[in-house]
């Protein structure tokens, strides 16, 4: 986690722009710097180019899926906490989520307060059972 002076950078990944828009709206007052990506490929480009403190990604996306992106991050940037936003919880088992170091599974539609709390916890290094190498 970076110094207190700089706001945490959140990378939000979803192929649905309306979701990104709603997430932005929700996190407007949370004091984060928000970066958006509309695909896993775009997210990887961002990760390579700049500092990112947390990734929140959708699962079902054309091309590379959210899970595949998380798998990539787990191996390339294991320190970055990652959260999966899912349309249908059955898409991933809790065991698989643990193995990939996923801090939280957030189901759509989400509750704003709940989402905000999970993000804060993840940034603080709390909650979630992801292993930190």
């Amino acid at each position: 986690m970076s110094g207190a002076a700089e706001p945490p950078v959140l990378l939000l990944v979803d192929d649905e722009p309306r979701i990104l828009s709603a997430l932005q709206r929700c996190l407007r007052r949370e004091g984060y710097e928000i970066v958006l990506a509309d695909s896993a490929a775009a997210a990887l480009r961002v990760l390579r180019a700049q500092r990112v403190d947390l990734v929140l990604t959708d699962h079902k996306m054309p091309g590379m899926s959210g899970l595949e992106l998380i798998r990539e991050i787990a191996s390339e940037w294991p320190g970055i906490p990652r959260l999966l936003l899912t349309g249908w919880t059955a898409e991933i088992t809790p065991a698989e989520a643990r193995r990939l170091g996923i801090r939280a599974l957030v189901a759509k539609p989400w509750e704003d307060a709940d989402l905000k709390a999970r993000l804060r916890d993840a940034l603080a290094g709390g909650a979630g059972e992801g292993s930190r190498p």
Partner: protein
Amino acid sequence: MERPSKPLRPAPDEPLSAPSVVVALLAEPGGSTAQRSEQALVRLGAEVEVSVHATAPELVRQMRSGGVDLLVLDGSLGDAVQRVLAARDPDAPPALVVAQGADEKLALSVFRRGAADCVALGPDYEEVLAVAALEQIQRFRAAAERGAAERRIRWLERLHEAIVEEIPAALAVVDARGRLVTVNPEFARCFDAPPREVVGRRFQDVLPETLRESGAIGRLIERAAAGHAPELRLARMRDASGERAFGVRAQRLDEDRRVLLVLAEVTLTEALTKELATLRRFGENVIENVNSALLVVDLEGRINYANPAAESLLGEKPIGSLWRWFDGALRERLVERTLREGVRFRGAEGLIARGSGERVPIGTSCAPMVDPDGVRRGAVVIFQDLTEIKQLQRQVLQAEKMASIGQLAAGVAHEINNPMGFIHANLFQLGEYVQDLARVFEEVQGLRKAAASGSLGEVARAAERLESVASELDADYLLEDCAKAVRESLEGSERIRHIVQDLRAFSHPDGSERSDADLNECLDSTANIVWTMMKHVVMLTKDYGELPPVRCFPMQIKQVFMNLLVNAYQALEEAGRGRERPGEIRLRTRAARGGVQIEVEDDGVGIPSADLNRIFDPFFTTKDVGVGTGLGLSIAYNIVKRHGGTMRVDSEPGVRTRFSIFLPRDGGEVAEEAP
């Protein structure tokens, strides 16, 4: 058939008296002998015909052609007379020879050759000839009559002998003391009783006891002997060949109370009659008790027979014309194919109106009814009430559709949850925005109050507070984003509405009758639904050709498409893990001869060749529990078959799988069979 030893010709029925008397005269035509002879013969009566012949062969020809009663030969013709006499056979008409005066030598020679008499050509020639001729003719006629009667008797005797020998009935004559007088060969054969051994013995000792008693033959013979009219009795006996049955009659033959006993074996007839009765009873039982309605109609469609099932299905006793119940396509098919062309068909479905006016779905099979000579007489029409079957079919289809929808649920839920996600978040935000804006509005109210107070200082302070709150809350942004959030949420709810509408299209069942459908439209709308679940992993290529309308149950056809698409999607999903490019589903439709061809191809995992011939079996599945019902392809296959179509699959494991469906334009309304 004639036997050489005993020729049996038709009964001789030559007339015993000829209508006229024919005399053949050998003399020089126009000569005095001829003239005097004719005058003499005419005296015998008007019916005498005389034909004069100049030569022997001419006369012999007439004699042999028959009907001649007398020959009169002019002795002066010498050799010719001898030739005629020589040509006579024993049955030939008598010959009178005319001698020129008393010619002893001539008389001697002609008598030796069989002439009946010699008449001298003297002055009383005419009288003498007439008398001699009459005598000869009468004698000849009498002899001919005797001969004919004898021949007739001989013929009748032979006929009698032949009948007695050949008749397939055992005959025996029994005298007044009950002794056998004579038996025929059939009697000997039937009772193993050679005539030589049994004649003279009592019939009770010859006939098997069981036979005698069962038919009360003794009493039968007594009654016949007493002059009672013949009566028929049935008698039975048992021997090595099993039980035998005989029809027995007895008839008195003469005053000596001899009786003819006739025993005709009816074992086979009886067995056949029994078998026939059994068969008839069997047929009647089957036809009367079978659940299918059965009607027999003639070539005009008039009902000749209806079984009880037909009566109960139609709700009344069917009388008159079948066309009262069978109309439209059913009637046309039956008349044109079965009654006119003699073609059998089965599986035709249609609706018939019962007596109560209620329409009942039926399945019918018709076969031409042909008599033993091969002539078409009508048709046998069998039909069943399909109401329950249709209901069950609809239930199964509906259940499977629900299962398919269950498989779609994951995709659909995702598709709905995306817009739900942002709508929900946006509404929550809008709520916060309203609170923020309410704070701004509070300051606006403060400003209005200050303005009303008239104090410039108050106004300036209120304006400052308003400015501070508005900028703190970023009111301009709020207003702008409020509109944006509403717009985006409306768009999201519109998307949800669409998805739900598409789903609804799958939840209502078809009506009971086929309708004309555009299969491109059916395929496309189905693909759109399934697409919601697969768009992240699948590229969908549509290649639609111009299609004629197809008569079908559109919802069922959509279900076929859905099952194939879901199947293709699952194959791709299985193959897609760890694959770079998305999978592809190619849809292709084309008009084909008599119908349409539809292909659904995917480049997913493929089907191992060992499974290829099982994939249409019900409950065959390679998927995990809960993923597939194992009914999808089986149901698709059956729907296609019920529409008279075919479904084929070919697959290269790991490369592609292609399902090809052919559907006929009439949607298989009637399935036909060669005659």
